[in-house]
Protein backbone atom coordinates (compact mmCIF):
# COMPACT_ATOMS: atom_id res chain seq x y z
CA UNK A 1 0.00 0.00 0.00
CA UNK A 2 1.02 3.58 -0.66
CA UNK A 3 0.05 6.39 1.67
CA UNK A 4 -0.65 9.99 0.65
CA UNK A 5 -0.69 12.78 3.23
CA UNK A 6 -3.61 15.12 2.60
CA UNK A 7 -3.24 18.74 3.55
CA UNK A 8 -5.99 21.20 4.24
CA UNK A 9 -6.09 24.93 4.47
CA UNK A 10 -9.04 26.51 6.24
CA UNK A 11 -10.92 23.22 6.20
CA UNK A 12 -10.53 22.72 2.47
CA UNK A 13 -8.39 20.00 0.94
CA UNK A 14 -5.48 21.44 -1.00
CA UNK A 15 -5.46 20.92 -4.75
CA UNK A 16 -1.78 19.93 -4.66
CA UNK A 17 -2.64 17.06 -2.29
CA UNK A 18 -5.29 15.86 -4.73
CA UNK A 19 -2.79 16.05 -7.58
CA UNK A 20 -0.42 13.90 -5.51
CA UNK A 21 -3.17 11.40 -4.85
CA UNK A 22 -4.21 11.31 -8.51
CA UNK A 23 -0.69 10.72 -9.80
CA UNK A 24 0.30 8.12 -7.20
CA UNK A 25 -2.92 6.19 -7.72
CA UNK A 26 -2.29 6.11 -11.49
CA UNK A 27 1.21 4.69 -10.88
CA UNK A 28 0.05 2.34 -8.11
CA UNK A 29 -2.48 0.79 -10.47
CA UNK A 30 0.36 -0.29 -12.75
CA UNK A 31 1.85 -2.17 -9.80
CA UNK A 32 -1.48 -3.49 -8.56
CA UNK A 33 -1.13 -1.55 -5.34
CA UNK A 34 -3.73 0.39 -3.38
CA UNK A 35 -3.43 3.99 -2.34
CA UNK A 36 -4.69 5.22 1.02
CA UNK A 37 -4.98 8.79 2.17
CA UNK A 38 -4.21 10.14 5.61
CA UNK A 39 -5.85 13.24 7.02
CA UNK A 40 -4.94 14.82 10.34
CA UNK A 41 -7.29 16.90 12.51
CA UNK A 42 -11.07 16.95 12.74
CA UNK A 43 -11.96 19.78 10.38
CA UNK A 44 -12.39 17.93 7.10
CA UNK A 45 -15.83 18.63 5.73
CA UNK A 46 -15.93 16.44 2.69
CA UNK A 47 -13.73 13.49 1.78
CA UNK A 48 -15.35 12.83 -1.62
CA UNK A 49 -12.43 14.38 -3.55
CA UNK A 50 -10.14 11.74 -2.04
CA UNK A 51 -12.24 8.89 -3.42
CA UNK A 52 -12.49 10.67 -6.77
CA UNK A 53 -8.73 11.03 -7.03
CA UNK A 54 -8.07 7.39 -6.25
CA UNK A 55 -7.92 6.74 -2.50
CA UNK A 56 -9.43 3.39 -1.51
CA UNK A 57 -9.34 4.18 2.16
CA UNK A 58 -8.63 7.13 4.39
CA UNK A 59 -6.93 7.08 7.75
CA UNK A 60 -8.36 9.90 9.79
CA UNK A 61 -6.16 10.86 12.73
CA UNK A 62 -7.89 12.79 15.44
CA UNK A 63 -6.70 14.24 18.72
CA UNK A 64 -6.62 17.49 20.67
CA UNK A 65 -3.13 18.48 19.61
CA UNK A 66 -3.77 17.81 15.94
CA UNK A 67 -6.06 20.71 15.05
CA UNK A 68 -3.27 23.13 14.23
CA UNK A 69 -0.23 22.14 12.20
CA UNK A 70 2.99 21.56 14.07
CA UNK A 71 5.84 19.76 12.27
CA UNK A 72 7.04 18.06 15.44
CA UNK A 73 3.64 16.61 16.35
CA UNK A 74 2.48 15.77 12.83
CA UNK A 75 5.75 13.95 12.11
CA UNK A 76 5.27 11.94 15.31
CA UNK A 77 1.68 10.85 14.59
CA UNK A 78 2.53 9.96 10.99
CA UNK A 79 5.50 7.99 12.27
CA UNK A 80 3.23 6.01 14.58
CA UNK A 81 0.71 5.35 11.81
CA UNK A 82 3.49 4.19 9.48
CA UNK A 83 4.77 1.78 12.13
CA UNK A 84 1.27 0.29 12.36
CA UNK A 85 0.25 0.03 8.72
CA UNK A 86 3.70 -0.31 7.08
CA UNK A 87 3.12 1.44 3.75
CA UNK A 88 5.71 0.88 1.02
CA UNK A 89 5.73 4.55 0.12
CA UNK A 90 4.53 7.82 1.61
CA UNK A 91 3.86 10.85 -0.56
CA UNK A 92 3.31 14.53 0.18
CA UNK A 93 2.48 17.50 -1.98
CA UNK A 94 5.57 19.70 -2.22
CA UNK A 95 3.84 22.65 -0.59
CA UNK A 96 5.18 24.86 2.20
CA UNK A 97 3.75 22.35 4.68
CA UNK A 98 4.86 19.23 2.81
CA UNK A 99 8.40 20.53 2.46
CA UNK A 100 8.44 21.30 6.19
CA UNK A 101 6.98 18.03 7.41
CA UNK A 102 8.38 15.34 5.09
CA UNK A 103 12.08 15.82 5.98
CA UNK A 104 11.27 15.71 9.68
CA UNK A 105 9.47 12.40 9.13
CA UNK A 106 12.31 11.09 6.94
CA UNK A 107 14.81 11.75 9.74
CA UNK A 108 12.56 9.93 12.23
CA UNK A 109 12.32 6.94 9.89
CA UNK A 110 16.03 7.18 8.92
CA UNK A 111 15.10 7.01 5.24
CA UNK A 112 15.86 9.03 2.14
CA UNK A 113 13.41 11.62 0.82
CA UNK A 114 12.94 12.77 -2.76
CA UNK A 115 12.09 16.48 -2.80
CA UNK A 116 9.97 18.04 -5.50
CA UNK A 117 9.47 15.04 -7.74
CA UNK A 118 8.05 15.89 -11.17
CA UNK A 119 7.76 12.39 -12.61
CA UNK A 120 7.40 8.86 -11.25
CA UNK A 121 8.50 6.08 -13.57
CA UNK A 122 7.94 2.37 -13.13
CA UNK A 123 10.77 0.46 -14.72
CA UNK A 124 10.93 -3.34 -14.42
CA UNK A 125 8.72 -3.20 -11.36
CA UNK A 126 10.83 -0.68 -9.50
CA UNK A 127 10.16 2.99 -8.92
CA UNK A 128 12.28 5.74 -10.39
CA UNK A 129 11.86 9.33 -9.33
CA UNK A 130 12.67 12.29 -11.55
CA UNK A 131 13.24 15.74 -10.11
CA UNK A 132 14.74 19.04 -11.21
CA UNK A 133 18.02 20.04 -9.54
CA UNK A 134 20.18 23.15 -9.89
CA UNK A 135 16.94 25.12 -9.98
CA UNK A 136 15.75 23.29 -13.06
CA UNK A 137 19.00 23.48 -15.04
CA UNK A 138 19.32 19.68 -14.79
CA UNK A 139 17.06 16.69 -14.23
CA UNK A 140 17.95 13.93 -11.80
CA UNK A 141 16.61 10.40 -12.03
CA UNK A 142 17.09 8.34 -8.90
CA UNK A 143 16.15 5.18 -7.12
CA UNK A 144 15.63 4.86 -3.38
CA UNK A 145 17.39 2.20 -1.36
CA UNK A 146 15.44 2.67 1.87
CA UNK A 147 11.81 1.90 2.66
CA UNK A 148 9.24 3.29 2.99
CA UNK A 149 9.95 5.46 -0.04
CA UNK A 150 9.32 9.09 0.80
CA UNK A 151 8.71 11.82 -1.76
CA UNK A 152 7.17 15.24 -2.13
CA UNK A 153 5.52 15.91 -5.49
CA UNK A 154 5.76 19.34 -7.07
CA UNK A 155 2.43 21.21 -7.18
CA UNK A 156 0.86 22.07 -10.54
CA UNK A 157 2.67 19.32 -12.46
CA UNK A 158 0.35 16.32 -12.25
CA UNK A 159 -3.20 16.39 -13.65
CA UNK A 160 -6.27 15.64 -11.58
CA UNK A 161 -8.57 12.79 -12.59
CA UNK A 162 -11.68 14.10 -14.25
CA UNK A 163 -14.36 11.80 -12.96
CA UNK A 164 -17.83 12.84 -11.91
CA UNK A 165 -18.39 12.57 -8.15
CA UNK A 166 -21.57 10.50 -8.44
CA UNK A 167 -19.75 7.69 -10.25
CA UNK A 168 -17.46 7.09 -7.30
CA UNK A 169 -18.15 4.75 -4.46
CA UNK A 170 -16.89 6.12 -1.14
CA UNK A 171 -13.96 4.26 0.34
CA UNK A 172 -13.39 3.10 3.85
CA UNK A 173 -12.72 5.62 6.63
CA UNK A 174 -10.53 4.36 9.45
CA UNK A 175 -10.65 6.74 12.37
CA UNK A 176 -7.80 6.70 14.80
CA UNK A 177 -7.62 8.71 17.94
CA UNK A 178 -4.00 9.23 18.62
CA UNK A 179 -2.83 9.60 22.18
CA UNK A 180 0.16 11.77 21.76
CA UNK A 181 3.55 10.29 22.52
CA UNK A 182 5.40 13.50 21.91
CA UNK A 183 6.36 15.69 24.79
CA UNK A 184 9.25 17.54 23.15
CA UNK A 185 9.17 21.26 22.44
CA UNK A 186 7.07 22.30 19.47
CA UNK A 187 6.74 25.23 17.10
CA UNK A 188 3.14 26.42 17.13
CA UNK A 189 1.31 28.35 14.45
CA UNK A 190 -0.63 31.10 16.23
CA UNK A 191 -1.82 33.16 13.29
CA UNK A 192 -1.99 33.21 9.52
CA UNK A 193 -1.25 36.64 8.08
CA UNK A 194 -2.60 37.06 4.58
CA UNK A 195 -0.99 39.26 2.02
CA UNK A 196 -3.55 41.75 0.81
CA UNK A 197 -5.01 40.90 -2.56
CA UNK A 198 -2.81 37.86 -3.06
CA UNK A 199 -5.03 34.84 -2.66
CA UNK A 200 -2.99 32.57 -4.84
CA UNK A 201 0.69 31.77 -4.66
CA UNK A 202 2.76 31.67 -7.86
CA UNK A 203 3.53 27.97 -7.24
CA UNK A 204 -0.19 27.17 -7.30
CA UNK A 205 -1.43 29.55 -9.98
CA UNK A 206 -2.57 28.27 -13.35
CA UNK A 207 -1.60 31.54 -14.99
CA UNK A 208 1.29 33.76 -13.93
CA UNK A 209 1.44 37.37 -15.08
CA UNK A 210 4.98 38.40 -14.44
CA UNK A 211 6.88 41.69 -14.61
CA UNK A 212 10.57 42.53 -14.80
CA UNK A 213 12.88 45.50 -15.03
CA UNK A 214 10.82 46.80 -17.95
CA UNK A 215 7.93 47.54 -15.57
CA UNK A 216 9.98 50.58 -14.46
CA UNK A 217 8.14 51.33 -11.19
CA UNK A 218 6.19 49.70 -8.36
CA UNK A 219 2.86 51.32 -9.35
CA UNK A 220 3.10 49.85 -12.85
CA UNK A 221 2.55 46.40 -11.37
CA UNK A 222 -1.05 47.55 -11.03
CA UNK A 223 -1.31 47.03 -14.81
CA UNK A 224 -0.51 43.36 -14.22
CA UNK A 225 -2.91 43.17 -11.26
CA UNK A 226 -5.67 44.50 -13.53
CA UNK A 227 -4.94 41.74 -16.05
CA UNK A 228 -4.93 39.25 -13.19
CA UNK A 229 -8.44 40.22 -12.09
CA UNK A 230 -9.63 39.20 -15.56
CA UNK A 231 -7.97 35.78 -15.59
CA UNK A 232 -9.18 33.11 -13.16
CA UNK A 233 -6.58 31.38 -10.95
CA UNK A 234 -3.86 33.80 -11.93
CA UNK A 235 -1.13 35.29 -9.76
CA UNK A 236 1.47 38.03 -10.12
CA UNK A 237 5.08 37.01 -10.64
CA UNK A 238 8.26 39.06 -10.84
CA UNK A 239 11.87 38.82 -11.85
CA UNK A 240 14.68 39.25 -9.39
CA UNK A 241 15.44 42.70 -10.87
CA UNK A 242 11.91 43.89 -10.06
CA UNK A 243 12.02 42.45 -6.54
CA UNK A 244 15.47 43.85 -5.79
CA UNK A 245 14.29 47.28 -6.99
CA UNK A 246 11.66 47.08 -4.26
CA UNK A 247 8.71 47.21 -6.69
CA UNK A 248 7.09 44.03 -5.37
CA UNK A 249 7.53 41.55 -2.51
CA UNK A 250 10.04 38.70 -2.85
CA UNK A 251 7.28 36.11 -2.42
CA UNK A 252 6.40 36.93 -6.04
CA UNK A 253 9.91 36.25 -7.31
CA UNK A 254 10.26 33.55 -9.94
CA UNK A 255 13.65 32.01 -10.68
CA UNK A 256 16.56 30.49 -8.95
CA UNK A 257 16.55 32.58 -5.79
CA UNK A 258 12.78 32.75 -5.92
CA UNK A 259 10.26 30.11 -6.81
CA UNK A 260 10.25 27.49 -9.51
CA UNK A 261 6.90 27.49 -11.25
CA UNK A 262 5.07 25.46 -13.87
CA UNK A 263 1.76 27.17 -14.68
CA UNK A 264 -0.31 26.51 -17.79
CA UNK A 265 0.53 30.00 -18.98
CA UNK A 266 3.40 32.32 -18.13
CA UNK A 267 2.93 35.87 -19.38
CA UNK A 268 6.21 37.78 -19.11
CA UNK A 269 6.24 41.57 -19.41
CA UNK A 270 9.53 43.43 -19.57
CA UNK A 271 11.53 40.41 -18.44
CA UNK A 272 14.76 39.92 -20.41
CA UNK A 273 15.22 36.33 -19.21
CA UNK A 274 18.41 35.85 -17.20
CA UNK A 275 19.66 32.27 -16.82
CA UNK A 276 18.35 32.18 -13.30
CA UNK A 277 14.89 33.44 -14.26
CA UNK A 278 14.61 31.00 -17.17
CA UNK A 279 15.57 28.13 -14.85
CA UNK A 280 12.61 28.96 -12.65
CA UNK A 281 9.92 29.31 -15.31
CA UNK A 282 10.88 27.40 -18.44
CA UNK A 283 8.81 24.44 -17.20
CA UNK A 284 5.67 26.52 -17.85
CA UNK A 285 3.40 24.84 -20.36
CA UNK A 286 2.95 27.94 -22.53
CA UNK A 287 5.08 31.07 -22.42
CA UNK A 288 4.15 34.43 -23.94
CA UNK A 289 6.69 37.23 -23.60
CA UNK A 290 6.45 40.93 -24.34
CA UNK A 291 9.73 42.80 -24.51
CA UNK A 292 11.12 45.82 -26.32
CA UNK A 293 14.42 44.15 -27.05
CA UNK A 294 14.18 41.67 -29.94
CA UNK A 295 17.40 40.04 -28.67
CA UNK A 296 16.02 39.33 -25.17
CA UNK A 297 16.89 35.74 -24.13
CA UNK A 298 13.30 35.17 -22.97
CA UNK A 299 12.27 34.93 -26.65
CA UNK A 300 14.33 31.73 -26.90
CA UNK A 301 11.87 29.94 -24.62
CA UNK A 302 8.69 31.83 -25.53
CA UNK A 303 5.99 30.09 -27.58
CA UNK A 304 4.87 33.53 -28.64
CA UNK A 305 7.29 36.44 -28.43
CA UNK A 306 5.97 39.95 -28.93
CA UNK A 307 8.51 42.67 -29.63
CA UNK A 308 7.04 45.94 -28.40
CA UNK A 309 6.36 48.36 -25.57
CA UNK A 310 4.44 46.68 -22.78
CA UNK A 311 2.87 49.99 -21.74
CA UNK A 312 1.30 50.28 -25.19
CA UNK A 313 0.33 46.63 -25.44
CA UNK A 314 -1.27 46.03 -22.03
CA UNK A 315 -4.26 48.43 -22.41
CA UNK A 316 -5.54 46.92 -25.70
CA UNK A 317 -4.66 43.43 -24.39
CA UNK A 318 -6.90 44.04 -21.40
CA UNK A 319 -9.76 44.95 -23.73
CA UNK A 320 -9.20 41.94 -25.99
CA UNK A 321 -9.03 39.60 -23.00
CA UNK A 322 -12.18 41.08 -21.52
CA UNK A 323 -14.00 40.52 -24.79
CA UNK A 324 -12.67 37.00 -25.24
CA UNK A 325 -13.45 35.92 -21.68
CA UNK A 326 -16.94 37.42 -21.80
CA UNK A 327 -17.89 35.21 -24.73
Amino acid at each position, binding site marked *: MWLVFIEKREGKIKKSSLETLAETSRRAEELDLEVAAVVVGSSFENLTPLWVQGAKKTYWLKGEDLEVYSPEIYAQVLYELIQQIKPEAVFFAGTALG*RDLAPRLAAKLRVA*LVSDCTRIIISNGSLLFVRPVYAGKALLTLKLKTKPFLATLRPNVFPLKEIKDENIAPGEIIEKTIGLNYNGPVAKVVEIVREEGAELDVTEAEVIISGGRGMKAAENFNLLRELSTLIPRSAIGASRAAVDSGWIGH*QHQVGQTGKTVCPNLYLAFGISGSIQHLAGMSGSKVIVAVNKDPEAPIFKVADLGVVGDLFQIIPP*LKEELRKALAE
Partner: protein
Amino acid sequence: MNLLVFVKRVPDTESKIRIAPDGQGIVEEGLNFIISPYDEYAVEEALRLREAKGGKVTVVCVGKEEALLILRKCLAMGADEALLIKDSAPESFEGLRVAAAIASLVKQRFPNFDLLLFGKQSFGADNAQVPAMVAELLGIPQVNVVVKLIIEGRNGVAYREIEGALEKVVFSLPAVISAQKGLNEPRYETLKGIMAAKKKEIPIIPIDELGISEDFLTPKMEIIKLEMPPTKKAGRIIQLPPEEAAKEIVRFLREEAKII
Protein backbone atom coordinates in the same frame (compact mmCIF):
# COMPACT_ATOMS: atom_id res chain seq x y z
CA MET B 1 23.54 33.88 22.37
CA ASN B 2 25.34 30.86 21.09
CA LEU B 3 24.56 30.97 17.39
CA LEU B 4 25.52 28.38 14.80
CA VAL B 5 25.09 28.97 11.09
CA PHE B 6 25.39 26.24 8.45
CA VAL B 7 26.48 27.15 4.95
CA LYS B 8 27.08 25.25 1.74
CA ARG B 9 29.43 25.81 -1.18
CA VAL B 10 27.49 25.68 -4.45
CA PRO B 11 28.00 26.59 -8.12
CA ASP B 12 27.36 30.25 -8.90
CA THR B 13 23.66 30.60 -9.62
CA GLU B 14 24.39 32.58 -12.79
CA SER B 15 26.57 29.85 -14.27
CA LYS B 16 25.72 27.31 -16.92
CA ILE B 17 25.73 23.71 -15.73
CA ARG B 18 27.40 20.91 -17.70
CA ILE B 19 26.72 17.26 -16.98
CA ALA B 20 29.70 14.97 -16.36
CA PRO B 21 30.14 12.19 -18.95
CA ASP B 22 29.21 9.50 -16.41
CA GLY B 23 25.86 11.23 -15.80
CA GLN B 24 26.41 11.14 -12.03
CA GLY B 25 27.10 14.80 -11.42
CA ILE B 26 28.12 18.11 -12.93
CA VAL B 27 31.47 19.18 -14.36
CA GLU B 28 33.04 21.31 -11.64
CA GLU B 29 36.02 22.43 -13.67
CA GLY B 30 35.72 26.03 -14.77
CA LEU B 31 32.71 26.67 -12.52
CA ASN B 32 32.69 29.53 -10.09
CA PHE B 33 31.56 28.50 -6.59
CA ILE B 34 29.80 30.67 -4.06
CA ILE B 35 28.07 30.47 -0.69
CA SER B 36 24.51 29.25 -1.33
CA PRO B 37 22.43 32.46 -1.60
CA TYR B 38 19.91 31.73 1.18
CA ASP B 39 22.75 30.90 3.59
CA GLU B 40 23.86 34.53 3.46
CA TYR B 41 20.56 35.59 5.02
CA ALA B 42 21.18 33.08 7.81
CA VAL B 43 24.69 34.45 8.45
CA GLU B 44 23.39 38.02 8.45
CA GLU B 45 20.58 37.19 10.88
CA ALA B 46 23.02 35.53 13.27
CA LEU B 47 25.31 38.57 13.15
CA ARG B 48 22.37 40.88 13.89
CA LEU B 49 21.24 38.73 16.81
CA ARG B 50 24.77 38.78 18.24
CA GLU B 51 24.98 42.54 17.82
CA ALA B 52 21.67 42.98 19.64
CA LYS B 53 22.11 40.39 22.38
CA GLY B 54 25.80 39.54 22.58
CA GLY B 55 27.22 36.05 22.18
CA LYS B 56 29.10 34.25 19.48
CA VAL B 57 28.51 33.29 15.85
CA THR B 58 30.13 30.11 14.55
CA VAL B 59 29.78 29.24 10.89
CA VAL B 60 30.01 25.60 9.83
CA CYS B 61 30.25 24.01 6.41
CA VAL B 62 30.05 20.35 5.44
CA GLY B 63 32.04 19.86 2.27
CA LYS B 64 35.36 19.75 0.52
CA GLU B 65 38.40 21.76 1.55
CA GLU B 66 37.64 24.26 -1.22
CA ALA B 67 34.75 25.39 0.99
CA LEU B 68 37.26 27.13 3.28
CA LEU B 69 36.88 30.06 0.90
CA ILE B 70 33.23 30.60 1.73
CA LEU B 71 33.95 30.17 5.44
CA ARG B 72 36.52 32.97 5.12
CA LYS B 73 33.86 35.12 3.52
CA CYS B 74 31.59 34.51 6.54
CA LEU B 75 34.43 35.42 8.91
CA ALA B 76 34.99 38.58 6.88
CA MET B 77 31.30 39.41 7.25
CA GLY B 78 31.85 39.28 11.00
CA ALA B 79 31.44 35.69 12.22
CA ASP B 80 33.60 34.89 15.26
CA GLU B 81 34.63 31.40 14.29
CA ALA B 82 34.36 28.93 11.45
CA LEU B 83 34.69 25.20 11.17
CA LEU B 84 34.78 22.76 8.28
CA ILE B 85 33.40 19.24 8.45
CA LYS B 86 35.45 17.73 5.68
CA ASP B 87 33.41 15.47 3.45
CA SER B 88 34.96 14.65 0.09
CA ALA B 89 31.91 12.74 -1.15
CA PRO B 90 30.43 14.18 -4.36
CA GLU B 91 26.98 15.82 -4.28
CA SER B 92 24.63 12.97 -3.40
CA PHE B 93 21.38 15.00 -3.39
CA GLU B 94 20.69 13.32 -0.03
CA GLY B 95 19.86 15.32 3.05
CA LEU B 96 20.20 12.79 5.83
CA ARG B 97 23.97 12.30 5.63
CA VAL B 98 24.70 16.00 6.10
CA ALA B 99 21.98 16.36 8.74
CA ALA B 100 23.49 13.50 10.75
CA ALA B 101 26.95 15.08 10.53
CA ILE B 102 25.59 18.40 11.76
CA ALA B 103 23.57 16.82 14.58
CA SER B 104 26.65 14.87 15.76
CA LEU B 105 28.84 17.97 15.68
CA VAL B 106 26.31 20.01 17.65
CA LYS B 107 25.89 17.32 20.30
CA GLN B 108 29.62 16.85 20.74
CA ARG B 109 31.03 20.34 20.45
CA PHE B 110 28.18 22.80 20.91
CA PRO B 111 25.87 21.31 23.55
CA ASN B 112 24.92 24.79 24.80
CA PHE B 113 23.73 26.22 21.51
CA ASP B 114 20.70 28.52 21.36
CA LEU B 115 19.87 28.73 17.69
CA LEU B 116 20.87 26.85 14.55
CA LEU B 117 20.42 28.88 11.38
CA PHE B 118 20.33 27.59 7.81
CA GLY B 119 19.36 28.86 4.38
CA LYS B 120 15.89 27.56 3.46
CA GLN B 121 17.47 25.34 0.79
CA SER B 122 20.81 25.03 -0.94
CA PHE B 123 21.18 25.81 -4.58
CA GLY B 124 21.87 22.60 -6.48
CA ALA B 125 20.31 19.80 -4.48
CA ASP B 126 17.37 22.18 -3.88
CA ASN B 127 16.19 19.75 -1.23
CA ALA B 128 15.19 21.93 1.70
CA GLN B 129 15.67 18.86 3.89
CA VAL B 130 18.66 19.39 6.17
CA PRO B 131 17.22 21.99 8.60
CA ALA B 132 14.13 19.91 9.47
CA MET B 133 16.20 16.72 9.66
CA VAL B 134 18.68 18.31 12.07
CA ALA B 135 15.80 19.60 14.21
CA GLU B 136 14.36 16.10 14.37
CA LEU B 137 17.69 14.46 15.18
CA LEU B 138 18.23 16.94 18.01
CA GLY B 139 14.60 16.85 19.16
CA ILE B 140 14.07 20.61 18.91
CA PRO B 141 11.48 22.80 17.18
CA GLN B 142 11.91 24.03 13.60
CA VAL B 143 10.62 27.01 11.70
CA ASN B 144 11.47 26.97 8.00
CA VAL B 145 11.35 29.61 5.27
CA VAL B 146 11.45 32.49 7.75
CA VAL B 147 11.13 36.12 6.63
CA LYS B 148 11.01 37.74 10.08
CA LEU B 149 12.51 36.62 13.37
CA ILE B 150 12.15 38.03 16.87
CA ILE B 151 13.93 36.54 19.88
CA GLU B 152 12.94 37.59 23.41
CA GLY B 153 14.74 35.75 26.18
CA ARG B 154 14.23 32.03 25.62
CA ASN B 155 11.27 32.49 23.28
CA GLY B 156 11.05 33.22 19.61
CA VAL B 157 8.45 34.41 17.13
CA ALA B 158 9.05 33.70 13.46
CA TYR B 159 7.03 34.53 10.38
CA ARG B 160 7.26 31.74 7.89
CA GLU B 161 6.27 31.99 4.23
CA ILE B 162 3.48 29.71 3.04
CA GLU B 163 1.35 29.91 -0.12
CA GLY B 164 0.01 33.47 -0.38
CA ALA B 165 0.40 34.18 3.33
CA LEU B 166 2.69 34.13 6.34
CA GLU B 167 2.40 31.84 9.34
CA LYS B 168 3.22 33.42 12.67
CA VAL B 169 4.95 30.71 14.67
CA VAL B 170 5.98 30.73 18.34
CA PHE B 171 8.70 28.48 19.71
CA SER B 172 11.23 28.16 22.49
CA LEU B 173 15.02 27.99 22.29
CA PRO B 174 16.99 26.02 21.31
CA ALA B 175 15.54 25.79 17.81
CA VAL B 176 16.26 25.49 14.10
CA ILE B 177 15.48 28.40 11.78
CA SER B 178 15.86 28.40 8.00
CA ALA B 179 16.11 31.74 6.23
CA GLN B 180 14.19 32.97 3.21
CA LYS B 181 14.99 36.00 1.08
CA GLY B 182 13.41 39.03 2.73
CA LEU B 183 14.63 38.17 6.24
CA ASN B 184 17.32 40.85 5.97
CA GLU B 185 19.81 42.43 3.60
CA PRO B 186 23.18 40.67 3.98
CA ARG B 187 26.12 42.99 4.55
CA TYR B 188 29.26 43.12 2.46
CA GLU B 189 32.61 42.14 3.88
CA THR B 190 34.72 45.07 5.01
CA LEU B 191 38.39 45.37 4.16
CA LYS B 192 39.17 45.17 7.87
CA GLY B 193 37.03 42.07 8.12
CA ILE B 194 38.77 40.44 5.17
CA MET B 195 42.19 41.12 6.70
CA ALA B 196 41.11 39.75 10.08
CA ALA B 197 39.51 36.69 8.47
CA LYS B 198 42.80 35.80 6.79
CA LYS B 199 44.50 35.45 10.15
CA LYS B 200 41.87 33.20 11.71
CA GLU B 201 42.42 29.52 11.85
CA ILE B 202 39.58 27.32 10.60
CA PRO B 203 39.57 23.89 12.25
CA ILE B 204 38.88 20.95 9.94
CA ILE B 205 37.11 17.86 11.25
CA PRO B 206 36.89 14.83 8.94
CA ILE B 207 33.31 13.61 8.72
CA ASP B 208 34.26 10.09 9.82
CA GLU B 209 35.62 11.40 13.12
CA LEU B 210 32.18 12.55 14.26
CA GLY B 211 31.05 9.10 15.33
CA ILE B 212 28.07 9.11 12.97
CA SER B 213 26.39 5.72 12.87
CA GLU B 214 26.74 3.71 9.68
CA ASP B 215 23.03 3.74 8.86
CA PHE B 216 23.26 7.49 8.29
CA LEU B 217 26.38 7.32 6.17
CA THR B 218 25.46 4.51 3.79
CA PRO B 219 24.00 5.98 0.59
CA LYS B 220 20.22 5.78 0.50
CA MET B 221 19.79 6.90 -3.06
CA GLU B 222 21.17 5.62 -6.31
CA ILE B 223 21.71 8.21 -9.00
CA ILE B 224 20.45 6.67 -12.22
CA LYS B 225 21.32 9.69 -14.30
CA LEU B 226 21.69 13.43 -14.31
CA GLU B 227 20.74 15.06 -17.60
CA MET B 228 19.87 18.36 -19.18
CA PRO B 229 16.15 19.11 -19.31
CA PRO B 230 14.56 18.86 -22.76
CA THR B 231 15.11 22.16 -24.55
CA LYS B 232 12.01 24.04 -25.39
CA LYS B 233 11.89 24.89 -29.04
CA ALA B 234 11.60 28.59 -29.67
CA GLY B 235 8.24 29.76 -30.86
CA ARG B 236 7.14 32.57 -33.07
CA ILE B 237 8.26 36.16 -32.72
CA ILE B 238 6.02 38.97 -33.89
CA GLN B 239 6.40 42.72 -34.12
CA LEU B 240 3.08 44.51 -34.75
CA PRO B 241 1.32 47.75 -33.78
CA PRO B 242 0.03 47.47 -30.15
CA GLU B 243 -3.65 46.81 -30.97
CA GLU B 244 -2.79 44.09 -33.46
CA ALA B 245 -0.21 42.57 -31.13
CA ALA B 246 -2.85 42.41 -28.37
CA LYS B 247 -5.30 40.72 -30.76
CA GLU B 248 -2.64 38.24 -31.80
CA ILE B 249 -1.80 37.33 -28.18
CA VAL B 250 -5.46 36.62 -27.42
CA ARG B 251 -5.92 34.69 -30.67
CA PHE B 252 -2.83 32.61 -29.86
CA LEU B 253 -4.01 31.86 -26.32
CA ARG B 254 -7.39 30.90 -27.62
CA GLU B 255 -6.77 29.01 -30.83
CA GLU B 256 -3.26 27.62 -30.51
CA ALA B 257 -2.56 27.27 -26.79
CA LYS B 258 -6.28 26.75 -26.02
CA ILE B 259 -5.90 28.36 -22.62
CA ILE B 260 -8.71 30.91 -22.58
